[in-house]
């Protein structure tokens, strides 16, 4: 009979309050951390970019666990979440990769040269 109770009722209220407070504090701390790193230029730019991205991902995980309650409820929730992340990474990294390659290959060409290149190599 106990099993029939809805899942969100089985956890104690205090535990749920605690979960929100921990999530909130961690989010504030990570946001401020990223902000101060950037404002004070703690590291060289190339490194700082990856650190800020890393902090953003940490905060995504914090909010997914403490606010969105990933892992509780339907298993499909986690599966669709992971699938969405996969698509997001393919879209973002794929776009950057392709466009950077394109930029690199088309570099140092004047419009006239480009026209000639297109005519000779692509038949356009």
């Amino acid at each position, binding site marked *: 009979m106990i099993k029939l109770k809805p899942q969100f009722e089985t956890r104690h209220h205090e535990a749920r309050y605690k979960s929100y407070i921990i999530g909130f504090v961690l989010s504030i701390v990570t946001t401020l951390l990223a902000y101060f790193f*950037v404002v004070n230029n703690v590291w060289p730019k190339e490194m700082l970019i990856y650190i800020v991205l890393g902090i953003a991902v940490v905060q995504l995980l914090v909010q997914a666990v403490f*606010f969105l309650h990933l892992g509780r409820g339907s298993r499909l929730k986690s599966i669709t979440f992971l699938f*969405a992340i996969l698509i997001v990474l393919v879209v*973002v990294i794929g776009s950057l990769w392709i466009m950077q390659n394109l930029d690199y290959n088309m570099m140092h060409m004047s419009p006239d040269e480009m026209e000639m290149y297109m005519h000779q190599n692509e038949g356009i």
Partner: protein
Amino acid sequence: MKDIVEETAVQEKKTLGFWIYLMTDCILFATLFATFAVLRNATAGGPGGSELFDLPFVLVETMILLTSSFTVGLAILASTRGLKKQTLFWLGITFALGAAFLAMELYEFNHLVGEGFGWDRSAFLSAFFTLVATHGLHIAIGLLWLGVMIYRLIRFKFKETDIKRLALFGLFWHFLDVVWIFIFSIVYLIGSMA
């Protein structure tokens, strides 16, 4: 008992359906993020992020949205305990914080356009406005939804459906907060590095 089981199953399905919507929304934002990332240096001789963005202003915006994400959580917890007044109080705070966030964003947009740095200035600014304003539009729709819920709570008795609707709204609002964290990190923080 059978009713409870069925109702929980139905609610679980509704939550999952809404969750899948959020994930597709996530992919919409991913395409806009990709566009922004590709066009980040395409300023056409115009100003880049380091000249345009006012980081302390954006930090305040971020803190406001983060806090509203927290207060909507408190409203949900109050609603599952059946405390109508407390629920209304936290929802009111959430609405005020959301409205403040939106007002600050509109102020920033207005300021940029007024300076002559609107979406027509460069590809970089087009991508910036598209990404940030799409998030702002979601916030505006969320505020509309929240307003309707607050009205319903004031006007009618506290019902089981209100609690369920509130739980879905909470998911939506937390999701927008997560998207904003990435806008804050990628567009503003990384974008403002000279």
